[in-house]
């Protein structure tokens, strides 16, 4: 049922719950508690993938997150295709559909496996050397072909239907890893009353205890103790337990990033649940108890399915109730191999041989193994393997007295359990910017001085003695707390690094170092022969350690081989930086809620719904939505804008101007404050009057404009551009705080306090007058560039008589929540009079006809007031204002600067594109410097022709001359004119 290789009892399984799943379309049954890897191995299936480069058949090497080989794709339905998952971490659920990767047409018959046959021609650096010419071929032929042949899973093509949640959390103590050490630390900290978060990447808390067969802690079996501690921690209100949660990044200020897998293991998840949570945790202290990674042995053909790490083989038996093989050769260089052999024998596997590279085996576990009758070969090494889709033989040789191996015997087996020792998992410590130090005694890199408030405990700090690890962890959790006592724990020696024996001459043999990137011992030696002396270079040349597993199982072997080839110490060859993420992370968590319509906040004015109801076309200005135009049924965009322009000029038009930035400046020295910010003078601006103002930056260039309205002696209401509002406000605050802290003026953003409805056109007054109370609307009493306070529709208004269209214009400011109702009321007056609503496109044309600049169109950050013909606005009598000193620079006054002009194309129907260059002759040689450029260009319904605004060198001296605008289809003549095409006398403004 759940597999022929299943043991009769034991394991952390629910043997009553059978789970159906499929792999590569074939149906299997597993048990609750299985991973995909353990469930398949229970059916004798080790072959789970093909390798990255040579397409060699591969099975699981490990049982954890460090797995390099068994990468699978899980297909959970439309849009839910996840590639590159480690089969050793995928929990099975009813209906799980998984498939292998990088194999075609099938896992068993992979056409690309020929890469293996031709592999003598595919050494390290091969791509750099071979695929050089012809030009462009790399990009278009070689790279796509290689990427198809090599590589991992395929990215999904459908949009991701799942959602992802953010969780921000703070704590005093974050503990990474819930093995015995991590739990001891968490318990001590929790008992001290601190806020504790305990993370573990596994389904279940326990770490090594989950596969422990013999240790006792505080007098209880390790698994039982694990459950007791977890129960205590679960009940504690100050503790957050996060299983299935990978801490993948360790940043500055003890900021940890972790991915919690929420629904991937559930057959029919509640759609309300997020697929994953992105935990962003800031901890006062971090305790890393990340354990260690077991190292493979490096020998030829060490990668066949059925060759795996010894402790992982043991874990299959003890935790998952699975016999990884029937006849097992254990290859070891330390005591751990004996523990594996004993546990596997207990599970009912035949141990063919324990092959120990050391001369003697005369201590505890070896004695126990011998007493069990397990055959032990000391002073022996494994030199290779035989087999196809599964290992069939281990090639084992005795070593001669000189240390070299003799002729090997072929031992029949279906599993080789190998172990070269343990590598402390220093990835997170390295990410935290702590410096690693090499420990020659154990041949490991260990955490040195931490760079943050953190500590590594247990195996990840090189402490493999459980008692010592528990003591360290308890002390790290809470100073002075009582450490739990451990009994019966194994203690292992350091093991070996690098090749178990010299490589044979034959070039086709492959002794894999980095399984995921298919890097062999020979590749690393080749890199050193070709001049790479630093591990950083060797890594990039061979790609060792650069796969998604970050070289967890391979880094130390690669270093040892490189050091040996270079004749140096490992410490001198160095270690590469460990980068995040620790394991691959689902992209979705980074976006969290920020996707589709929630990608950014969308800012809408209170009048927005009115325009939505009328089918407005929208554009973005910063985060704001603004109406571009409001088309009637059947209109083309050009027809809409033409109608809006003509209607506004002939009758009236209304527009939503609420997005304009608005700032209220108050205080006895408010006018002085504005004097220093704008080029204009505000000292003599009367109450109730408005002034157009230009703001410069310190280099003397225009960066914002707007209207300043004096509401009272000590109170101004000013407007900024929509997108410049936040910046202008920040600049004002900056000057106030750093330059003029004693100035008696303060200001407040009122952009959203007021909704603004612009009413423009000859009928504007007629439309508003019936709604307004307390304001004399007559031209005599309420002239252009004035502002009045009163009521409209019974609510307060700041009613300004200003115009950006050239027509008589009013801006109705009302408190925002009344905006929509006032808009409705105005429309009820406007519509019967034949007025229209208009959008930004119309506004841009109408203002251009009047020659009003738009900051950002006519200006580009290099334009002075004089350049745009506003030099006269500068109040040079003022002692200072921002940008004044720069305006005196010679370059800002030199002849030849571009100046603001109008252009009329000789062909009235030709409309140059905005941005077109302007030259002085129809035909110019290549390289001719342009005289200027077109900044705005429109067809004018009012003028019945095209017209442009432009910035032109010495433009004002060229009035009346002919210049040429250069477009894609050639040069077009145009006459230089004053930038004012409509109502030059301004009679309409003052009507």
């Amino acid at each position, binding site marked *: 049922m759940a597999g022929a290789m299943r043991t009769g009892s034991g394991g952390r399984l629910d043997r009553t719950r059978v789970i159906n799943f499929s792999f590569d379309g074939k149906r299997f049954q597993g048990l609750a508690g299985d991973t995909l890897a353990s469930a398949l191995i229970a059916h004798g299936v080790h072959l789970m993938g093909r390798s990255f480069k040579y397409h060699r058949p591969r099975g699981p090497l490990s049982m954890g997150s460090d797995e390099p080989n068994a990468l699978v794709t899980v297909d959970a339905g439309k849009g839910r295709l996840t590639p590159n998952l480690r089969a050793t971490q995928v929990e099975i659920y009813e209906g799980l559909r998984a498939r292998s990767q990088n194999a075609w047409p099938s896992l068993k018959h992979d056409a690309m496996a020929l890469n293996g046959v031709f592999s003598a021609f595919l050494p390290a650096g091969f791509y750099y050397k071979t695929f050089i010419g012809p030009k462009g071929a790399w990009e278009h032929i070689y790279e796509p072909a290689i990427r198809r042949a090599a590589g991992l899973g395929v990215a999904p093509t459908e949009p991701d239907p799942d959602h992802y949640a953010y*969780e921000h959390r703070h704590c005093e103590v974050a503990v990474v890893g819930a093995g015995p050490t991590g739990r001891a630390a968490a318990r001590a900290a929790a008992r001290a009353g601190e806020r504790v978060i305990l993370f573990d990447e596994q389904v279940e808390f326990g770490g090594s205890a989950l596969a422990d067969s013999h240790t006792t802690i505080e007098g209880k079996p390790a698994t039982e103790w694990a459950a007791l501690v977890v129960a205590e921690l679960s009940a504690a209100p100050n503790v957050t337990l996060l299983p299935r949660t990978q801490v993948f990044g360790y940043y500055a200020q003890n900021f940890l990033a972790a991915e919690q897998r929420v629904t991937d293991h559930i057959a029919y998840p509640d759609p309300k*649940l997020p697929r994953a949570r992105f935990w962003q945790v800031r901890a006062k202290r971090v305790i890393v108890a990340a354990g260690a990674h077991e190292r493979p042995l490096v020998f030829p053909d060490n990668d066949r399915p059925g060759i795996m790490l010894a402790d992982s083989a043991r874990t299959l038996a003890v935790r998952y109730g699975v016999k990884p093989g029937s006849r097992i050769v254990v290859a070891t260089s330390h005591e751990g191999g004996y523990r594996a052999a004993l546990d596997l024998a207990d599970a009912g596997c035949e141990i063919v041989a324990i092959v120990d590279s050391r001369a003697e085996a005369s201590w505890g576990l070896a004695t126990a193994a011998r007493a069990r009758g397990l055959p032990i070969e000391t002073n022996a090494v494994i030199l290779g393997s035989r087999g196809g889709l599964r290992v069939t033989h281990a090639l084992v040789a005795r070593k001669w007295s000189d240390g070299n191996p003799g002729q090997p015997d072929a031992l029949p087996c279906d599993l080789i359990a190998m172990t070269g020792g343990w590598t402390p998992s220093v990835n997170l410590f390295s990410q935290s910017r702590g410096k690693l130090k090499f420990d020659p005694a154990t041949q490991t890199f260990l955490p040195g001085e931490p760079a943050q408030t953190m500590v590594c405990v247990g195996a990840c700090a090189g402490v493999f003695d459980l008692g010592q690890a528990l003591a360290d962890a308890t002390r790290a959790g809470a100073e002075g707390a009582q450490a739990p006592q451990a009994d019966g724990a194994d203690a292992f020696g350091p093991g070996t690094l690098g090749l178990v024996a010299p490589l044979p001459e034959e070039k086709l043999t492959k002794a894999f170092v980095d399984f995921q990137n298919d890097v062999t011992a020979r590749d690393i030696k080749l890199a050193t022969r070709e001049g790479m002396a630093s591990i950083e270079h060797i890594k990039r040349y061979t790609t060792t350690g650069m796969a998604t597993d970050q070289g967890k199982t391979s880094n130390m072997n690669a270093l040892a081989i490189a050091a040996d080839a270079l004749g140096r110490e490992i410490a001198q060859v160095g270690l590469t930086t460990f980068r995040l993420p620790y394991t691959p992370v689902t992209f979705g968590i980074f976006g969290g809620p920020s996707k589709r319509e929630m990608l950014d906040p*969308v800012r809408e004015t209170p009048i927005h719904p009115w325009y939505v109801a009328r089918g407005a076309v929208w554009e973005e200005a910063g985060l704001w939505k603004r109406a571009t135009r409001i088309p009637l049924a059947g209109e083309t965009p050009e027809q809409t804008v033409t109608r809006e322009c003509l209607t506004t000029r002939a009758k009236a038009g209304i527009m939503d101007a609420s997005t304009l930035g608005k700032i209220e400046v108050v205080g006895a020295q408010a006018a002085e404050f504005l004097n220093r910010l704008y080029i204009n003078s505000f000292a003599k601006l009367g109450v109730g009057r408005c002034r157009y103002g230009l703001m410069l930056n310190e280099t003397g260039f225009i960066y914002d404009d707007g209207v300043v309205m004096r509401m009272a002696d000590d109170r101004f209401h000013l407007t900024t551009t929509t997108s410049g509002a936040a910046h202008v406000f920040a600049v004002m605050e900056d000057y106030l705080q750093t330059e003029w802290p004693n100035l*008696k003026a*303060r200001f*407040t*953003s009122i952009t*959203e306090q007021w909704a603004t409805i612009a009413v423009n056109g000859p009928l504007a007054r007629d439309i508003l007058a*019936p709604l307004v109370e307390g304001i004399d609307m007559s031209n005599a009493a309420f002239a252009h560039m004035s502002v009045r306070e009163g009521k409209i529709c019974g609510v307060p208004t700041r009613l300004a008589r200003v115009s950006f269209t050239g027509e008589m214009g009013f801006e109705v400011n009302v408190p*925002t929540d009344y905006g929509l109702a006032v808009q409705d009321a105005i429309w009820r007056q406007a519509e019967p009079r034949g007025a229209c609503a208009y959008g930004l496109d119309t506004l841009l044309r109408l203002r251009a006809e009047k020659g009003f600049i738009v900051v950002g169109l006519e200006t580009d950050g290099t334009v002075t007031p004089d350049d745009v013909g506003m030099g006269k606005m500068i109040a040079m009598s003022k002692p200072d204002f921002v940008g004044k000193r720069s305006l005196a620079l010679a370059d800002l006054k030199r002849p030849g600067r571009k100046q603001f002009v109008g252009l009329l194309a000789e062909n009235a129907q030709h409309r140059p594109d905005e941005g077109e260059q302007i030259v002085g002759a129809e035909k110019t040689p290549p390289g001719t410097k342009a005289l200027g450029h077109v900044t705005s260009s429109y067809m004018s319904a009012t003028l019945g022709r095209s017209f442009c605004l432009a910035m032109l060198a010495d433009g004002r001296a060229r009035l009346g001359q002919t210049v040429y605008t250069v477009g894609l289809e050639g040069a077009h003549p145009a006459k230089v004119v004053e930038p004012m095409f409509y109502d030059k006398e301004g009679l309409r403004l003052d009507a």
Partner: protein
Amino acid sequence: MTPEVVRRSVLDGRPLPATGRVKAYPLPFATRLNLRGSPDVVEPVRKAFGVAPPTQPMGSASAGERAALWLGPDEWLLLAEENAGDLMGTLTSALGGVFHSLVDISHRQVGIAIEGPGAARLLAAGCPLDLDARAFPVGMSTRTLLVKAEIGLWRREENFFRIEVLRSFAPYVARILDLAARDQG
């Protein structure tokens, strides 16, 4: 003759979460004044407003519907009932010659209540601050972020927060809260 004009909240018709552990709801319209000036304003405002603007960073003071929230060394948000009469005028008179700036921002932003034992957790979906009651005690008020929106956050009770947010960001904030409540079950 002018037609009747009704005040419309931007949160009208916007879903806000209500679960067993937490609910969010729009707070009633209020009078809001932005007060800027030196600490000299504190005493006159206390007398006229009934609440003294706090000088403690991130502090708040309140009495009934009136409150003063610290926004910066020279800036406070004054909250009062919607129909507070001529509060601007009253305060301006009380402040007399003391330099200050007082600006009506009643419509600029909206208040959202987050209430219930799950309140801090709900906010933690988008707010990076430590919202534990020891780190962010009752009465603390600060400007912070909710995912991509700037908000003001004021803890009124252990399980009651008030968000103050610019009107145009309020629908975004409501949606973030709604999504977070769904994610948290």
